[in-house]
């Protein structure tokens, strides 16, 4: 492994031999010295030995157990993490057992699913975990056979001495290996020697999923557990005034009705009973904030786009001068609605607050944050809380917020019983924490030759934070550039939604670049490549994207799609850098009876080394389906502070018949993995809108596309 980062220098330590023998390894972030700790079980580990962040164990029976610490929500981390360990270990994958680890801030680092960061963060540490164990197993075999370690090789979970034809399984060597000194450093494999990484490996939970075994938070049942549903205010800006719970309390199976904060919780013996009883609550609310409607937001956006009070995010050169001398100016505005995350498994969490500690269990993308917030809420030490991670039935960023975990903990502390809070689909959709609604105004100045000499972007959003990514392309390629933003504070709650901000910004930017290319009479791919060339030759200000990697995906997508060479099909192009990876897409639209039909989407992704080809391929395809579906169909609008959509009957998600063929290609450049959970989504809307323009001459500037008057009678 040529590049050694700070992470990779972290020392490894041997922890303990598992009960009955066997090797358990972890790696320590602080200590450089470790000694064998004897036969103890994990729960009895001395505090000094617990400080590590990933581990594997090998039993004498040759079962290799790899703990997967990060929450699994469909990004396939529970399969790809262990693959990385198993690769360096030269394990027999069929003998690897993968176990979801609970939250353990002593053992693990960054037990988070978000920001497409898990594999990039853990790549080296997982490899070292495998390589260190492999080294110790080889040393143990060398000692037993009295041969030099460098005369031994490993394959498929065995150490082999080719000269004598001897062979031992890792299980047979595990106990002896646990006594070998832990190496200070180990050699990692050359990428070309990977046997498992880069292949298609099936999901480790497939059997449980296809046989309907309990895996998810909603599937959990714990002894004595009560079920709860919570009535929250029906509109943002309302607060609880009074509750008449008499009728609800009298219904069968209802144990209690409890009020806390703005919540009225119905607690009972089954889901259906609390669901029904909740409808019998008589609650009155009073206004405490603005009751905003989407029509208010539309008006507000227009004001904010003109507001003198904007935050400057990036300023290069002199835009005013550039626009004054421009031969041509292009202006355009793009807007997106709020979106619900709508993971298929609605929010839920189990909590049991006891005098001696708290037990939490369920689906969360941020177990540590959830635990710490519960500790703060209850005024107890985080160490007195355990958190068991279930598989997540989707997340999309919604489960980065711990609101529903806090509800469960607070309710359990009030009713003094183990309780699971369950959100109905309607609760999930109307309960807040949405992708913010945003509007963008773009302006571009072209000189007489069609060169872009000025570029302006203002983003205005509702609780959006900074709705721009000011250092993204084309920043760095334009001499005079101004990027600014204005945020409106609203009672409507928002949060990260898969590829936060860029999930719509990418569409707006890439559609606007298409408008500029069209105005400049340039081919959209050539136009982007020229801008990159300019950024490479004479960068303007700081450049925070990798020009070569972006060019790489552009060229690959153009090549694979036969860009510009096809007849009878309209192609649209888009490319985006988000998180750490690069994805370019070409959408193809055909006209069938004058109706534009999205026929195919090509994707070229550069996420560095692909760990699991099956997971990665589907991750890109799924990201495109997600991007396409929300661009085409989805919208959460408001009236009087209340969402106008409550369930899948009026909030439209993409369905099977609506997905086009999708063809995925990866750039093979040997770079360490840079993440793939999000980056395939942002480019899709732009590629599709640009292809629809090519086919129909109509520009789509607002989402969802199906509601745009330009396409009213042509798609749906």
């Amino acid at each position, binding site marked *: 492994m040529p590049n050694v980062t700070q992470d990779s220098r972290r020392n490894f330590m041997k922890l303990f031999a598992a009960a009955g023998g066997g090797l358990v390894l972890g790696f320590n972030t602080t200590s450089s010295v470790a000694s064998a700790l004897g036969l103890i079980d994990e729960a009895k580990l001395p505090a000094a030995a617990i400080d590590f962040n990933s581990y594997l164990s090998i039993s004498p029976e040759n079962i290799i157990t790899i703990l997967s610490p990060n929450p*699994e929500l*469909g*990004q*396939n981390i529970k399969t790809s993490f262990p693959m990385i360990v198993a690769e360096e270990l030269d394990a027999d994958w069929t003998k690897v057992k993968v176990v979801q680890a609970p939250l353990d801030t002593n053992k693990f680092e960054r037990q988070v699913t978000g920001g497409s960061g898990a594999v990039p963060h853990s790549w080296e540490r997982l490899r070292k975990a495998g390589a260190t164990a492999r080294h110790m197993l080889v040393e143990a075999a060398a000692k037993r056979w009295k041969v030099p370690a460098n005369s031994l090789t490993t394959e498929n979970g065995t150490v082999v001495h080719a000269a004598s034809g001897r062979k031992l399984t890792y299980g047979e060597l595990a106990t002896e290996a646990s006594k070998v000194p832990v190496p200070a450093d180990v050699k990692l494999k050359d990428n070309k020697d990977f046997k498992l990484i880069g292949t298609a490996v*099936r*999901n480790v*939970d*497939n*059997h449980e*999923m*296809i*046989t*309907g075994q*309990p*895996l*998810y938070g*909603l*599937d959990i*049942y714990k002894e004595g557990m009560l*079920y709860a549903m919570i009535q929250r205010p029906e509109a943002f800006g309302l607060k609880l005034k009074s509750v008449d719970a008499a009728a609800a309390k009298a219904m*069968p199976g209802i144990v209690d009705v409890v009020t806390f904060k703005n919540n009225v919780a119905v607690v009972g013996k*089954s*889901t*259906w*009973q609390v669901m*029904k009883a909740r409808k019998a609550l008589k609650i009155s609310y009073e206004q405490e904030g603005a009751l905003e409607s989407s029509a208010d937001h539309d008006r507000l956006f227009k004001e904010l786009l003109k507001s003198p009070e904007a935050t400057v995010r990036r300023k290069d050169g002199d835009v005013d001068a550039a626009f004054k001398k421009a031969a041509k100016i292009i202006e355009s505005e793009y807007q997106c609605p709020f979106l619900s995350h*709508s*993971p*298929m*498994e*609605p929010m839920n969490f189990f909590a049991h607050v006891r005098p001696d500690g708290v037990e939490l269990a369920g689906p969360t993308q941020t177990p540590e944050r959830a635990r710490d917030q519960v500790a703060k809420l209850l005024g107890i030490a985080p160490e007195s809380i355990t958190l068991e991670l279930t*598989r*997540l*039935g*989707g*997340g999309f960023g919604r489960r980065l917020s711990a609101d529903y975990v806090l509800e469960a903990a607070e309710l359990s502390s009030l009713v003094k019983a183990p309780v699971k809070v369950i959100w*109905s*689909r*309607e609760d999930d959709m109307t309960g807040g924490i949405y992708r913010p609604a945003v509007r963008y105004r773009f302006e571009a100045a072209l000189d007489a030759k069609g060169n872009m000499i000025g570029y302006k972007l203002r983003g205005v959003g509702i609780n959006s934070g900074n709705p721009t990514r000011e250092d993204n392309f084309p920043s760095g390629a334009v001499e005079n550039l101004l990027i600014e933003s204005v945020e409106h504070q609203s009672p409507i709650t928002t949060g990260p939604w898969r590829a936060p901000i860029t999930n719509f910004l990418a569409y707006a930017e890439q559609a606007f670049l298409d408008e500029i290319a069209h105005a400049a009479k340039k081919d959209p791919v050539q136009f982007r490549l020229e801008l990159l060339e300019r950024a490479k030759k004479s960068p303007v200000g700081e450049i925070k994207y990798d020009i070569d990697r972006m060019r790489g995906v552009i060229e690959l997508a153009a090549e694979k799609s036969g860009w510009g060479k096809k007849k009878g099909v309209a192609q649209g192009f888009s490319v985006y850098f988000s998180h750490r990876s690069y994805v370019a897409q070409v959408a193809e639209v055909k006209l069938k009876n004058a109706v534009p039909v999205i026929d195919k989407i090509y994707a070229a992704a550069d996420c560095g080394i692909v760990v699991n080809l*099956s997971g990665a391929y*589907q*991750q890109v*395809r*799924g*990201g*495109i*389906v*997600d991007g396409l*579906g929300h661009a085409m169909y989805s919208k959460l609008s408001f009236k009087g502070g209340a969402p106008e959509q409550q*369930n*899948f*009957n009026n909030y439209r*998600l*993409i*369905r*099977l*018949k609506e*997905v086009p*063929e*999708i063809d995925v290609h990866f750039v093979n450049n040997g770079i360490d993995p840079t993440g793939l959970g999000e980056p395939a989504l942002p480019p899709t809307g732009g590629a599709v809108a640009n292809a629809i323009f090519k086919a129909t001459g109509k520009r789509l500037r607002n989402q969802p596309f199906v509601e745009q008057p330009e396409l009213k009678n042509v798609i749906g």
Partner: protein
Amino acid sequence: MAIYKLQINGRSYEVDVEPDTPLLWVLRDNLGLVGAKYGCGIAQCGACTVHVNGNAMRSCVYPVSAASNAKITTIEGLSEDGSHPVQLAWDEVDVAQCGYCQAGQIMTATALLNKNPKPSAEEIDNAMNGNICRCGTYHRIREAVALAATKQK
């Protein structure tokens, strides 16, 4: 509350619940059969799909009072060990991402193949269109249904 006798996966069960309780919640809360999932509660997403007398049904809106005397199959009853052709196809194609909707997808696909062992691509699309997959595994769902059709005895 009333007593209902149910025939599920070839076994007999007796539950004491309110007549309007959807079959989904009886399966999940009363019988511990959690393969069928709650997704929307209004028969829009298909995550709760089970078979009632061989037909794919949305158990979230199917009252238990209507289920007496019916032959119910849930994903747990497709096979003892995941060896039903549709389950095998789902594994082989590696369909799932988060996996939450997949039990419902599998039950819809199985009902289709029981009635139409060699469906066309269009018939597969029509049958599966009612099941939402938020992760977007639709291509693999199509592929797995087609593969399962080749595995049926």
